[in-house]
């Protein structure tokens, strides 16, 4: 996540820039800059223009598949929350996302702790193999996974989907939390053991509060992965009342004859909101905590 933050201005980097700025810009420099900003503007337009329709139509009382000036109204959102069926999509998505993330984090903290604090045969092999798992594209295993779930009688249940989603994200969480927990000094835990805590008490009282940022990052990645997943719920769920937003949106969109564009756009905005809010929130707090650590350290 740190990669998205613009590079810190180090003294070495500042010095030449200042010298550079004192000189008047040569024509070549000016052309370079104009070119660079033009490229940037084009790229940002490319990235943002597709969202125009979504935002405009969601607040448009008579929205269609086209970009048009909206007849401003929040009717689409009101309809989303009052319609029969659509609020259920949001509830299902939230259940799957929250429970899946919670399960994933519990398994991840426990496993990450074991991987970080114990030397046991097969530890490196285990770490390496869960890294290798990432090489497998999801569509390549979904068929067999579906059959297994059929045999376990877990298809078409939210519980089954939650279990699968939590586990699919687990390798990444394990790697992330193993690293985070390993960076907590073991002496802090030893002090807690001396004070009469068991290992698990020390884990809860000492380690958990100290790995906040790593835990937040893992939670965000997991939640966004589960929330955005389309293939797994598409394969695993058949009953309409279990659909999450991703499948609900898809079904509403593929219903070619009568697509309710305004409602569709509003649902999409509702669908985007949680990951967007979470992303901003976690990023802000991640920054804060890492800065806080730097100041105290």
């Amino acid at each position, binding site marked *: 996540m740190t990669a998205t933050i613009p590079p810190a201005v180090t003294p070495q980097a500042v010095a030449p820039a200042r010298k550079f700025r004192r000189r008047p810009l040569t024509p070549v420099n000016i052309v370079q800059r104009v070119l660079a900003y033009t490229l940037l503007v084009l790229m940002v337009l490319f990235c943002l223009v597709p969202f125009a329709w979504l935002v405009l139509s969601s607040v448009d009382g008579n929205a269609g598949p086209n970009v048009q000036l909206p007849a401003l109204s929040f009717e689409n959102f009101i309809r989303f929350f009052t319609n029969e069926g659509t609020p259920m999509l949001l509830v299902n998505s939230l259940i799957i996302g929250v429970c899946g993330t919670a399960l994933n984090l519990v398994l991840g903290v426990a496993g990450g702790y074991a991987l970080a604090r114990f030397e046991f045969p097969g530890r490196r092999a285990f770490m390496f193999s869960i890294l290798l798992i990432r090489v497998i594209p999801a569509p390549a295993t979904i068929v*067999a996974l579906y059959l297994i779930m059929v045999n376990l009688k877990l298809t078409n249940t939210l519980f089954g989907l939650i279990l699968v989603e939590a586990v699919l994200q687990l390798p990444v969480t394990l790697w992330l939390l193993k690293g985070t927990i390993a960076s907590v000094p073991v002496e802090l835990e030893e002090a807690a053991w001396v004070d009469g805590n068991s290992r698990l008490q020390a884990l809860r009282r000492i380690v958990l509060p100290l790995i906040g940022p790593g835990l937040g990052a893992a939670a965000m990645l997991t939640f966004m992965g589960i929330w955005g997943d389309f293939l797994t719920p598409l394969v695993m769920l058949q009953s309409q009342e279990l659909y999450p937003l*991703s499948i609900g949106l*898809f079904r509403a969109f593929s219903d070619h004859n009568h697509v309710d564009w305004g409602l569709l756009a509003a649902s999409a905005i509702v669908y985007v909101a949680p990951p967007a809010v979470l992303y901003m929130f976690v990023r802000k707090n991640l920054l804060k905590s890492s800065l806080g650590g730097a100041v105290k350290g």
Partner: protein
Amino acid sequence: MTSITGSPTRAAAAPQPAPPGRRRPKRTWPFVLLLLGPGAVLIVVFIVVPALYGAYLSFTNTQLTGFAARDPKFVGIDNYTYLLTSADFLASLGQTGQFVLFSAIIGQTVLGMVAAILLSRPWVRGKGLWGAAVLMPMIVPEVVASLTWASVLSNNSEGTLNRLTGLFGADPTSWLQVVPMVSIIIVNIWRGVAFAMIMFQAALEDVPADLIEAARIDGASAIQIFRHITLPLIRGPVFLYLLLTTISTVGVFGLVYFLTQGGPGGATRLAAIYIYERALQFAQIGIGSAASMILLVLVLILGLVYVRLSKVEV
């Protein structure tokens, strides 16, 4: 969870019943099993077993419905010979190849590199804002990404793209019908630029500024500096990125399925969509699994090639 003495119930299935560890002899392994066991078992059940089971299924004529569903038979390599001689499947592999090559290896990499380099210039203002805008397509769920592009590429004369081309006097075009492959490639580039940018920004930060400065003083042009100094130094991260993006692009399903459902006439039936159609819509699990295995082997080969390339002559 507070008791550590309770015997772990899934001891047998955890990765390896470990002999006593170094630090806390005799007390370590039940604890490791208790903590790591559940996660490891679930990973095995839901990720490893499906991969192996899929390999087994690919040699059978398993069906979801019909006679073969009752009593699947071992059919040897029939599924593979069927697939490798089927024009449909070969076409879908070819489309996957095109899709990966043009959208991930060329499009995302080039645009991401351009964005990373531009944003690494010391004089560019508002880096956070530019970066955040480029990040947007990656943060939104894939269904929403598809939905936005469905409206951009809408065949209606008022669709975003048709309005833009209309400014130049062009007639409205039904983009997803006329140029389906180009459309989904552009959509995937749009979605992946941010990831490339992040990876390359991190790599560029590690290039020592004084090396660049020295080359500049020696009179090297910006392009020469990039070609002979920056690029060799970020070779490792670039190949790592290519590996990651290839894997994830081969796995792209929802983004394309939402927009085209493999159509028109199978023109965008990527391998992932082929597998889904075969196995879960036509219920031919055996053939779908064989297709999965072929895809998996191809990805592994590509991965090995990247790993080799990234090590040679650094």
